[in-house]
């Protein structure tokens, strides 16, 4: 309640009004408090100066725009928004370039013990659909093992396989296209 900017501002205004009667210089402080809540704002709303006692004009507080912190899992600037690990042909080894990604997700799971994760392994469409489920499972299991070694718990992580059923690229049968389909996708609770 106390941290609500509107409450703070209303309090500042009240203090300001009181200041008109007493002589305690508080508006300066309240202005600073409001500034803190609008970082990067180009035109922060200044708290109104207390009206001169002779004036008939009234003022209304204008609260600064509220800043909602970005969800790290969705923030494009955050590595946690990167959700796919790609593989070489016939391989379930997580390549070095994807290690930081796995580490970041492991750290998130460690710091958020209530967070749950689903890892979906995927394959290109060559060969048997059922065998490809098994291959995708091996990819997802590999990522899960890394996450557990990095501190995530068994209860947080489920590894499953979508086999060849959820291709990201369906445009053609070329190698580049199929490479997009050899991947593990990371989903958090609420996303699946």
């Amino acid at each position: 309640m106390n941290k609500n900017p509107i409450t703070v501002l209303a309090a500042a205004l009240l203090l300001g009004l009181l200041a008109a009667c007493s002589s305690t210089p508080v508006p300066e402080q309240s202005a600073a408090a409001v500034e803190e809540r609008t970082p990067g704002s180009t035109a922060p709303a200044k708290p109104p100066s207390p009206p001169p006692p002779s004036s008939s004009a009234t003022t209304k507080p204008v609260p600064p725009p509220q800043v909602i912190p970005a969800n790290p899992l969705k923030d494009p600037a955050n590595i946690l928004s990167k959700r796919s690990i790609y593989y070489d042909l016939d391989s379930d080894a997580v390549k070095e370039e994807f290690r930081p990604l796995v580490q970041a997700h492991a750290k998130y799971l460690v710091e958020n013990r209530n967070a749950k994760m689903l890892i979906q392994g995927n394959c290109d469409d060559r060969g048997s659909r059922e065998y490809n489920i098994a291959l995708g499972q091996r990819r997802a299991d590999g990522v899960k093992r890394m996450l557990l070694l990095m501190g995530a718990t068994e209860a947080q992580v489920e590894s499953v396989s979508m086999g060849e059923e959820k291709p990201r690229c369906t445009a053609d049968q070329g190698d580049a296209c199929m490479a997009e389909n050899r991947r593990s996708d990371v989903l958090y609770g609420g996303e699946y």
Partner: protein
Amino acid sequence: MTVRKLIFALLLLCAGLAHAQLTIEITGAGANQIPIAITRFGGEDALSQSISEVIEADLQRSGRFKMLYAGNVNPLPAEINQVSFADWKSRNADALVIGAVSRLPDGRFEVRFRLLDVPKQVQLGGVAYAMTAAQARTTGHRIADYVYEKLTGERGVFSTRIAYVIKQGQRFELQIADADGRGAQTALASREPIISPAWSPDGTRLAYVSFENKKPVVFVHSLTTGQRQAVANFKGSNSAPSWSPDGKQLAVVLSRDGGSQIYLVNADGSNVRRVEASGSIDTEPYFSPDGQTLYFTSDRGGSPQIYRMNAGGGAATRLTFDGSYNVSPRPSPDGKLLAYVTRNAGRFQLATLDLASRQSQVLTDTQKDESPSFAPNGRIILYATEIGGRGVLAAVSSDGRVKQRLSVQAADVREPAWGPFTAN
């Protein structure tokens, strides 16, 4: 081998079903085809569906008959004493099917047919059925089954059904159709993939894998009630259902204890038990017809190969050795042959392995064969392949001679499963 090309474009009688209609194209011909003529049935014009056409198309599709011209017969014979055998002899017919349709007082129809041996000028058999007008196709299939069995000594599969999955845009449908692709009905529609349909031995239920829960889950679905139940929905992936011949349990592949391993589960989802424990991929279990053996795919030897083991577990025996990719084993109904998919120079092709002689034979010349399924009489193997970038179903006689292709306009068809014989 003489290779003829016959094209059967089945007319789309019902525009509403057009999207679901399988069209069948046949290539190749069997050896020792029986020359047969099927006359129009007198009185069948009263039906919207000609019965004699259904019989002719069925027998034609089997590849085991040579269809002879049966027109220009007046009047149409209904009994043996009305048949001019000299005429049929001159048309080189060995067998002749005649029949008649008449309206019964209760509004139904009686369909009578006679199967005749032309050289011997004798009747081989005949049956009369009482049916509604809507049962004309079903009756035609039953007559074709009768003729097929009398003349080949093997049971016909024209009255059986097939299941398959259609993908149209982002929509998946599990469909059931007659063996000729007609009369398709959608048992399940989903926005998520459906794979691996498997018929219960009595033909009343289908097990399959659905991805509707963002992961593979095994369901058992009653076709008569439309009710279904998740029978394997454990942590991890649940897939590859295969019915035991008594219909009481399913072999499934679960990853709940790590890796992909084979388990048995009762058909109601109870009593899950692990069959084996290996550090490798073990998947695609399939019961032998006697229920004693499980065939499966494993990469325990470094590449995916086909093995078999006792259905209760125990040591496994490797069955395939040629090539580095042999998967999807399906034993024939008599247990003598194994259909599977093999990779040859980047092409995935349907092959059979004679389990006694260990001789293997590649049956197709397509590139992306998958999911073989034997007809219940063992004569035909239905499978999925790709032609022109589109998923189609294809069928090949188990000796590789006769080939058929079944496609649906503007949709991918995949994951075929041939249903069991239906009780007549």
